[in-house]
């Protein structure tokens, strides 16, 4: 039997794993060309989220707030929101604006659909894309907020479009470097695409002489509108439920075939992506990608005995957890604790379905916090953790080395540049993992061997 635990009954969360729903919903808007976001709520919500996101990407993160005050909380925040939109448009002149709610707005019953409708009418803005997304912080986690925003944007912008060649690519929150790699793979496979969201430039923008308040890049609105004409959608959201799935929406409402794949980290997941691309385009697998695949295999062989020592804790957003857990299993690293802060029905079922007998001793934690992750990691004797910076107490308190991946990474530089997808990205991730094990082993090797085996006369030790 698989050992599952739902921590839902607990009264208190210690060191939270997830972030709140509106934070997740900001990110897709940051991946659209010339877009802005306004958070309908207290001023602090926008500021906390900006700070959290800015620290990861090392990019300015401008997000407006309707700055609801005591008066707004009593009489409603409609005027604040409308004024906020006016000011935001004056300062940034965006082509699309996301309106995200918060705990406060939802609790006082703000109807943002109606307010945005009225606003467009009052200002004579016609079809201007204002995209309201209900994201109460007490609702779901940031991971679901992310996908809900994507779905709302697509369902609002998508137009009946005659068939074209651009495959829809929908990703969870991956690093800008990962997105660049996915685009490279598609290009090598001779596949045209619409990547949405595309933060590869907007949240990892090059230094230029002229500063752009809204960074250049991002998915074009016209490309999002044309997504219904795509030959297929490739969505890296294997564990996502249909009601939140943008790819499912495009399939059900517009008839675009959906290939819902795991994030292409790990040999098998990369193979699946290339098989699907081959199937859709009819193109053979590019020779250079086959050589990259061969190099990954070479790395897997080179490192397999080191990796066999790995006893890992894996935590984070469900899609990443799935992909990293599979990658560990491919390489003989035992996943001892697999945890997500989100509530996700499919993650553990899919993992055990695919690799059941390899996960017999694995502790699964849903809606986890870091204190429970730490407790189980310690009890199981983990020697490796893979996840975001939030797992840093595993190192500080339990001396378990942490390989950083995902969001947020705020105690190291370069989270936006970490490459982990594709054969090459997987090779780089695997090297980071193996090297963490090697460093740990080398740090403890002499003393451990001495303590284990030396039984002679104690000299000066």
């Amino acid at each position, binding site marked *: 039997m698989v050992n599952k635990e739902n921590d839902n009954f607990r009264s*208190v969360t210690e060191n939270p794993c997830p972030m709140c729903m509106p934070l997740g919903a900001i990110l897709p808007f940051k991946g659209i060309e010339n877009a802005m976001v306004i958070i309908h709520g207290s001023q602090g919500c926008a500021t906390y989220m900006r700070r959290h996101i800015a620290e990861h990407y090392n990019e300015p993160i401008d997000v407006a707030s309707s700055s609801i005050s005591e008066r707004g909380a009593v009489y409603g925040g409609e005027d604040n929101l409308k004024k906020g939109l006016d000011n935001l448009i004056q300062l940034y002149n965006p082509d699309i604006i996301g309106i995200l709610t918060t705990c406060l707005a939802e609790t006082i019953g703000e109807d943002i659909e109606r307010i945005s409708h009225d606003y467009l009418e009052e200002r004579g803005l016609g079809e201007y894309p204002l995209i309201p997304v209900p994201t109460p912080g007490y609702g779901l986690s940031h991971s679901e907020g992310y996908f809900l925003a994507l779905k709302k944007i697509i369902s609002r912008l998508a137009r009946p479009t005659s068939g074209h060649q651009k495959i829809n690519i929908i990703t969870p929150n991956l690093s800008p470097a990962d997105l660049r790699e996915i685009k490279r793979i598609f290009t090598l496979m001779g596949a045209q695409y619409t990547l949405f969201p595309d933060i590869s430039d907007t949240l990892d923008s090059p230094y230029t002489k002229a500063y752009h308040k809204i960074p250049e890049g991002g998915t074009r609105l016209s490309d999002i509108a044309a997504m219904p004409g795509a030959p297929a959608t490739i969505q890296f959201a294997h564990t996502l439920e249909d009601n939140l799935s943008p790819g499912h929406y495009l399939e059900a409402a517009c008839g675009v075939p959906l290939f819902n794949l795991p994030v292409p980290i790990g040999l098998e997941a990369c193979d699946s992506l290339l098989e699907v691309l081959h199937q859709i385009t009819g193109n053979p697998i590019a020779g250079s990608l086959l050589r990259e695949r061969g190099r990954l295999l070479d790395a897997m062989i080179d490192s397999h005995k080191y990796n066999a020592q790995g006893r890992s804790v894996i935590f984070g957003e469900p899609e990443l957890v799935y992909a990293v857990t599979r990658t560990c299993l491919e390489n003989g690293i035992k996943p001892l604790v697999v945890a997500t802060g989100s509530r996700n029905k499919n993650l553990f079922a899919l993992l055990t379905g695919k690799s059941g007998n390899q996960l017999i001793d694995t502790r699964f934690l849903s809606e986890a916090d870091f204190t429970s992750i730490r407790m189980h990691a310690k009890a199981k004797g983990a020697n490796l953790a893979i996840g975001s910076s939030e797992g840093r107490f595993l190192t500080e308190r339990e001396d378990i080395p942490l390989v950083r991946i995902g969001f947020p990474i705020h105690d190291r530089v370069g989270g936006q540049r970490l490459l982990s997808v594709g054969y090459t990205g997987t090779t780089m991730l695997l090297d980071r993992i193996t090297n963490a094990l090697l460093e740990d082993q080398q740090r403890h090797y002499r003393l451990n061997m001495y303590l284990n085996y030396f039984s002679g006369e104690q000299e000066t030790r």
Partner: protein
Amino acid sequence: MIDMSLSHVGASLVEERKSSIQIKGQPNPALKCESSSIAGCVSQRACVYCGARVVLNPITDAVHLVHGPIGCASYTWDIRGSLSSGEELYRLSFSTDLKERDIIFGGEKKLAKAIDDLVEKYRPPLVLVYSTCIVGIIGDDLEAVCRAAAGRHGIEVLPVQSSGFAGSKSDGYKAACDVLLRLIQPRQERQPAAGAMLNYLGDFNLAGEAWIISDYLRRMGIKLNVVFTGDSSCQALKKAAGASLNIIQCAGSMGYLGRAMQERDGIPYMNVSFLGLEDTAASLRRIAQFFNDAGITKNCEDLIAEETKRVEAEIWGYRQDLAGKKAAIYVGGGFKAISLIKQFREIGIDVVMIGTQTGRREEYDTINRLVDDGTVVLDDANPTELEKFMLQQGADLLVGGVKERPLAYKLGLAFIDHNHDRKHPLSGFAGAVNFAREVHDTVCSPVWQYL
């Protein structure tokens, strides 16, 4: 007149913001400050909860429990560099993680259970329960829940009235001070004078700053009773009324507490600053003066001479390279901004733009007195204004927090981290040399020549 245009984008700043921006030397009405942020302007300010949490979080042996949705606890978990010489409980972030059903049915029972569980697990002397936006709306009675829990467990359980929307970050400071006042046992009548013993208010022991100041005081022959709130414990805070003087560094957050303790406990207070050589020396002298003791005065002069000698040459060296550079300042409070003007002067740098998130009227008056004509002064600025005025004023560097840092870098400007998660002290003589070194490191870095 202030040029409000944004020439490169053919737009302009928001008209309503105009009264919060001034140029020193021009005939100006009073700068608009201490008012609500304007919607949609992308203010850099945080909320009431943030202000309260910043002030109280350094209490090391308290359980800091956020009654609210997960985000509020998530974004404030161990993000600040306050150090402890003992307990580490304050580095954990606890949340009742309110969900939809709690919003509908109320969160009081969940909160009571959370307190019980935490007390059983950690046995803290103090539980601080922070209110968040929704708690203010759904009307959970924190006061009653906390009082009942305090009775059950025989410890201090105090609510922090920090619903995010109910004011600004400074209202959060006040909420925190109110909690501290409840915690401090009032001074008994006829309590004997404490001798040379003081409380130090408004230092959060970032990178050990309170330890540096504590060492100076000890060498002067003055006993430090307790710091508010860096490296403090519940027990020590309770006994704060035993001191004979309160010195206040961060007046924006702690001035209120100082005034209240003067009124209630009859303890006089004195505003000090340990940022920069000049302010540090002047503050130490004023403290010595207060105690009017020949020994303390001599120790004070010896200390200033010794410490100044230790760092002077190094700072002078940096000054050679930095003289004539121009600084922009955008920080949280007025106290910090004021100190920075003087500190920059010590290393030959002029301030050309200065603003704060929550500066008070009298602090802006002081700023206005200190800066040169032509300096742009602004309250509750946004990225658009910061960009415009830093470029227009030809700033070489910006001092700010985490959100401002990438903006400076994208504009090709040097940057000084004057925020709560920095890892180096900026207080006292040691801090002054760190500051000068940091300015030198960033302004004189070779990277800029490649831009």
